[in-house]
C-alpha cells in the first residue's frame, strides 16, 4: 500500500463519517415542501386567501421552547357565520403541524392562545376554515434567540 492511497482512504472514510453524522439532523427538519404537503392534506385544493386572520407572536422570540402565540379571526361567530377550525403550522420545525383548534358559534369570539416551540427562525402560518368552507390565513416570520432544538 502506498502512503498516497492510505491517505486517500482516510479522507474518504472521514467524508462518509461526516455524511452519516449529518443525516439525522437533515431528516428531522421540515421543509417548505413538507409544509405544502401538510396544507394540501388538510385543505385539499381549496384556495387559501390572506386576510381575516391575525397571527400574533413576538417578532423576536426570546426562547424557542416556549413562544406565546395568539390567533384572532375576524368573525361574528353566529350560527350562520363562524369559524370552524384554526390550524397552526411552522415551516421549519421537524413536523410542520403545530396544533388545530375546533370552534363554533358557542365560542362568541374567535380567538385562541397557546404556546409553541420553534426550532429556529421561521415562518409561522395560521389558517382558519369558516363554516362556508372558505379558508383565510395570516403568517409571520419569527426570529428566535434561543432555539427549541439541540438540548
Amino acid at each position, binding site marked *: 500500500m502506498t502512503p498516497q492511497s492510505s491517505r486517500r482512504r482516510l479522507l474518504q472514510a472521514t467524508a462518509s463519517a461526516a455524511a452519516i453524522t449529518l443525516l439525522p439532523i437533515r431528516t*428531522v427538519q421540515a421543509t417548505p415542501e413538507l409544509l405544502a404537503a401538510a396544507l394540501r392534506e388538510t385543505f385539499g385544493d381549496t384556495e387559501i386567501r390572506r386576510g381575516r386572520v391575525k397571527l400574533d407572536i413576538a417578532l423576536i422570540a426570546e426562547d424557542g*421552547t*416556549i*413562544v406565546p402565540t395568539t390567533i384572532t379571526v375576524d368573525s361574528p361567530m353566529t350560527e350562520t357565520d363562524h369559524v370552524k377550525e384554526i390550524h397552526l403550522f*411552522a415551516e421549519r*420545525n*421537524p*413536523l410542520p*403541524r*403545530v*396544533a*388545530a*383548534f*375546533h*370552534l*363554533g358559534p*358557542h*365560542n*362568541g*369570539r374567535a*380567538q*385562541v*392562545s*397557546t*404556546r*409553541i*416551540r*420553534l426550532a429556529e427562525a421561521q415562518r409561522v402560518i395560521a389558517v382558519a376554515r369558516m363554516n362556508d368552507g372558505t379558508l383565510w390565513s395570516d403568517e409571520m416570520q419569527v426570529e428566535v434567540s434561543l432555539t427549541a*432544538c439541540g*438540548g
Partner: protein
Amino acid sequence: MARTFIRIPAEAKPGEIVEVKAMIEHPQHSGFRLDHVGKPIPRHIVTTFTCSYAGKEVFRADFHPSVATNPYVAFFVRATAAAEFELTWIDDRGTVVKERTTLNVA
C-alpha cells in the same frame, strides 16, 4: 398524575363571553430530542384537549409535538346558563385527566 391549572370565572351574566384558560403539567416530549447519553427520548405528548359546557363540546384542540411543555390553551365561551364545564386532556399513552368547574349565570 398531572397537575392542571384552569381559570374560568365563577360567575357571568347571560350572554357574556368568558375566557377559559387551561394548562396541564406534561413533559410534552417531542420525540426529536436526545437524553444525556444520546439516546432518543420517546415521544410523550398530550394529543387532545376538549372543553364541554352544559354537556356539549364547545372547544377542542389537537396538539402535535411543536406545542410547548405544559400545554396551555386559552379560548372563549359564551355563557348561556348556569352549568358545568368539563375539561379533558388525553395523552398518547392513553392517560385521561378531567377537571370540572361550575359557572354561575345570573
